[in-house]
């Protein structure tokens, strides 16, 4: 749809602008400075501070707010007339009245929009008969300090909290001079601590404790880089002084986040300078890990590799999905060429299997095929497996903005909500792990209502078997198995049929119950029904760690080569042989589930940032693997649980200390720039791999050559692909056992258990580990908040404090995933069936 242009006159000059565009934007594009305090491009127009007034000379005329006035044909605007300047001066005078002026001692240290405006416009001399409304500082929150005496009531914090973050923790209470930003019942701030309010505050009414510092804005270095805590790919502007963090601000003009950020990207950076950070290599001597030189440590590693080769033992390399794309490529290339070992991968990280075996096997590409634009543009978004609030905060804000700013629907289908259900059109609170059941039931329902949907798909592999397998999924059977009402399924089916475009979001997570592969396959099949053969456009898999997609793309995977080819793909192997000079092994590498069986045959286990004990669900047997392996090498920034079994520990750079790139959940490859400096010199993962290769007399190619190889083998971003295969649904699972209680595992917002648990700021915010249960069950078992409960499954038992939480589904108890090392993980013995536990009062 072409936008119609209108002509307006600005300061005597004719200007063309699209009809309906905000006057403020039109004026700013003309290079005209229009001051604003309450305006924010992330929010719907507000028009509260009246500093953006300009004079309209045509029609009714007068002073109008540019920030909330759309342009109309023939408008005549004066942007700097005497009336405009005087009005702004008056407005500033009113604002100054209720602002405690202490600029020289203020935390803003000159970095203040309000101060700038007062300097620019001045304020009238006369005094007005009002006094500053006195109010005490609110220092109840561990990170955010609120000073109501400085607040201008621009409302940006309140509006961001609701409209963008969807939290609504703060609001404007009372009116007139008494108006104040407040929480409900003035309780201490209890929110997601995304910091959006602090970053948006034009003055020092909101200040972040961790970032109150003596370094003024003009002395800081500001670098925009990709936040690599999760896979959202947010661009964050990190301000540093001598390599230390001073502020973290979301990049307003850059995607994908366009000015949004979460608690980790805001506050998590302190973990880099944690006291227990490793600075020198450690080597095991006489049973003890002792400091050693790099030379000694690397000699020990190459010696062990030589021994393993001589004994024909397995050499296994596990990177992480946090590695940079380049380092991951180097690691797998090192294993597949120098060591001729097929055993490389990144461990069992949420999203990898969904991408590789889910999307890869149905759509032919092991990638999400929808990105952020699809998430905001689709008519309907269906979110499966978990609430992205805790694991993928940017995806959450996209959903909130869809609902609150664009009025578009999304539907949640999972066991436990995290706050997003308030904005959802529909929330199907499922029995944990029943997402694939729901999707099969929906597919059956759609086919019953509109059999013609099948027409275009009948020739696709596996369609007939899939269609037959769905017959058991009647609406009542599905509803019963999922623990929802049939009418809820009916309503969702109608919504799906009515929507012109649908995006299905599959939240990956090792701790979340349910089979992510089956869910992804079922989602792809359902989408294929709805949209003919173009299901690829609408599937979004959320990988857990920052570079799940990138590490998979470059072949850090036991069954995939760079460019996503299967390891036994002869064409791909021949291509790699030409490029590498060595043909990669055709044999599939060990899968995480196979390590325990093979543990004794592992000569060297190289863990590049991987911790099988604290990071993996217990069922993979991390401890047994480490005990069985002959020689264990860890690359890590901290001594983790796995390091206790290590023979050599090599300290490395992490997060914002590294350079390279990550591929975010939307498939876009984004750069990491070096922002922070570790206290002492440290190598990056890739540098160690290069050095090991050199010491094994097989030097790796230059960095340029490696980058060129990656570019040749992997393409970003990818195009959509039609469905290629259907997988038959299993028999309808039995409804959840009534006598037992189902265990659900919830990822945490403030840390994900391993790396982020090192951040003091994030730890301070984390609630204590507790077992959460519904109020119904609390009454049933006569449990009070805070009481100790025993949660038992088989031989294992957890003793945890009870928290009554009305978000929890009755009949389910929720234990945090990764909240306390492997405690919750140890309960999760199988991935596709929810665990039945016994709950007793202690």
């Amino acid at each position, binding site marked *: 749809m072409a936008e119609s242009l209108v002509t307006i006159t600005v300061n005597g000059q004719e200007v063309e602008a699209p009809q309906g565009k905000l006057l403020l934007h039109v004026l700013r594009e003309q290079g005209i400075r229009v001051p604003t305090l309450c305006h924010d491009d992330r929010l719907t127009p507000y028009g509260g501070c009246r500093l953006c007034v300009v004079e309209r000379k045509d029609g009714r005329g007068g002073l109008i707010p540019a920030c909330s006035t759309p342009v109309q044909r023939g408008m005549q605007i004066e942007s700097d007339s005497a009336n405009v300047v005087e009005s702004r001066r008056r407005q500033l005078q009113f604002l100054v009245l209720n602002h405690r002026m202490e600029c020289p001692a203020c935390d803003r240290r000159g970095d203040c929009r309000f101060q700038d405006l007062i300097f620019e416009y001045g304020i009238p001399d006369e005094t007005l008969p009002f006094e500053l409304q006195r109010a005490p500082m609110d220092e109840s929150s561990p990170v955010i300090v609120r000073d109501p005496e400085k607040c201008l009531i621009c409302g940006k914090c309140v509006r961001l909290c609701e409209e963008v973050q969807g*939290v609504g923790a703060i609001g404007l209470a009372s009116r007139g001079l008494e108006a104040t930003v407040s929480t409900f*019942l003035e309780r201490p701030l209890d929110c997601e601590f995304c910091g959006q309010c602090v970053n948006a505050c034009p003055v020092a009414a909101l200040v972040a404790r961790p970032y109150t510092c003596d370094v003024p804005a003009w002395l800081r270095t500001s670098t925009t880089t990709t936040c690599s805590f999760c896979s959202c790919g947010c661009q964050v502007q990190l301000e540093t002084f001598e390599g230390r963090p001073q502020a973290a601000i979301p990049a307003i003009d850059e995607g994908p986040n366009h000015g949004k950020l979460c608690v980790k990207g805001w506050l998590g950076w302190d973990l880099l300078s944690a006291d227990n950070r490793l600075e020198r290599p450690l080597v095991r001597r006489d049973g003890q890990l002792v400091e050693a030189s790099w030379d000694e440590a690397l000699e020990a590693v190459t010696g062990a590799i030589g021994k393993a080769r001589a004994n024909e033992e397995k050499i296994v390399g596990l990177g992480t999905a946090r590695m940079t794309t380049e380092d991951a490529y180097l690691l797998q290339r090192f294993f597949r060429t120098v060591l001729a070992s097929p055993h490389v991968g990144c461990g069992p990280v949420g999203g990898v299997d969904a991408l590789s075996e889910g999307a890869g096997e149905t759509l032919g590409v092991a990638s999400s095929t929808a990105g952020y634009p699809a998430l905001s543009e689709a008519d309907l978004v269906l979110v499966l497996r978990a609430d992205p609030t805790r694991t993928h905060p940017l995806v959450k804000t996209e959903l909130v903005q869809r609902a609150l700013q664009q009025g578009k629907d999304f539907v949640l289908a999972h066991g436990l909500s995290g706050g997003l259900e308030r904005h959802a059109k529909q929330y199907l*609170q499922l029995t944990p792990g029943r997402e694939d059941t729901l999707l099969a039931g929906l597919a059956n329902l759609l086919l019953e209502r509109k059999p013609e949907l099948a027409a275009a798909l009948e020739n696709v592999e596996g369609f007939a078997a899939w269609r037959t397998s769905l017959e058991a999924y009647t609406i009542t059977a599905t509803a019963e198995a999922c623990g929802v009402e049939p009418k809820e399924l009916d309503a969702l089916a109608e919504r799906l049929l009515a929507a012109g475009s649908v995006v299905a979001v599959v939240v990956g997570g090792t701790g979340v119950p349910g089979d992510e592969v089956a869910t992804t396959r079922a989602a792809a099949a359902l989408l294929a029904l709805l949209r003919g053969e173009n299901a690829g456009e609408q599937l979004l898999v959320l990988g857990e760690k920052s570079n799940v997609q990138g590490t998979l793309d470059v072949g850090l995977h036991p069954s995939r080569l760079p460019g996503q080819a299967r390891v036994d793909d002869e064409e791909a192997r021949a291509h790699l042989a030409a490029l590498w000079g060595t043909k990669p092994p055709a044999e599939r590498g060990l899968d995480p589930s196979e390590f325990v069986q093979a543990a004794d045959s592992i000569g060297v286990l190289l863990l590049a940032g991987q911790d099988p004990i604290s990071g993996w669900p217990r069922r993979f047997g991390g401890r047994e693997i480490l005990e069985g392996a002959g020689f264990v090498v860890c690359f890590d920034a901290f001594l983790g649980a796995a390091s206790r079994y290590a023979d050599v520990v090599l300290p490395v750079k992490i997060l914002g200390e590294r350079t390279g790139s990550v591929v975010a959940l939307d498939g876009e490859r984004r750069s990491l720039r070096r922002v922070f400096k570790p206290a002492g010199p440290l190598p990056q993962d890739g540098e160690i791999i290069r050095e090991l290769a050199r010491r094994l007399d097989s030097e790796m190619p230059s960095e340029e050559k490696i980058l060129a190889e990656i570019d040749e083998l992997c393409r970003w971003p990818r195009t959509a692909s039609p469905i290629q295969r259907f997988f038959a649904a299993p028999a309808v699972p039995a409804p959840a056992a009534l006598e037992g209680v189902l265990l659900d595992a919830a990822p945490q917002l403030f840390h994900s258990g391993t790396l982020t648990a090192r951040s003091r700021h994030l730890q301070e915010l984390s609630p204590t580990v507790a077992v959460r249960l519904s109020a*119904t069950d609390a009454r049933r078992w006569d449990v009070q908040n805070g009481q100790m409960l025993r949660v038992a499954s088989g031989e294992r038992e957890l003793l945890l404090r009870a928290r009554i939480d*009305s978000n929890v589904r009755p009949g389910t108890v929720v234990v945090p995933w990764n909240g306390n090392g492997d405690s919750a993980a140890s309960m999760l013995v199988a991935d596709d069936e929810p665990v039945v536990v016994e709950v007793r009062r202690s």
Partner: protein
Amino acid sequence: MSDARTVRGPESEGFFGAQELPPTDIDFGDIWQQIDEYVAAHPGGHERLIPLLHRVQEQLGYLPFPVQEYVARTLGLSPIQVYGVVSFYHFFTTTPRGRFQLKVCMGTACFVRQSQQLLDTLGDVLGVEVGGISDDRLFNLDQVRCIGACGLAPAVMVGNEVHGNLTPTRVKNLVKKLRKQADEEEGASA
């Protein structure tokens, strides 16, 4: 959404940590059900907030915080958004109202006919300050500007009913009569 009603009382727990409401032994009757019914009968969005608050205040005489939280949940708002509206409009109140709203007219005509005496007497008899509520939650005492019943000065309003030509003795009797009426109503409902 099951269990939404558990916002009452101290067992409520927010997702991010302790969010305990002050314990309450006040019985709000079937107000939860009335809110559910209102919302079911009026499909729509957030525009239902103000009419619903009116309805609740009509029933309870004020807007208790646990009820505000319940209204928020029911309409998909955050509690502070509801409180923002409640605190913005002076019509809404968060302090409990008595069964009978006594408003002593302090307009010029009533004032010259000793309405101050009526106010003082009522304050003594009920044991409340102006603007307060009696311990038995039966009476609220307020003073108001002219109620337009100057011919009946001095006058007191009980709810929407005007009582004129009052003396200290007559207001004492009025209070007695209202107490009796409340007793009878309670007896009838018990």
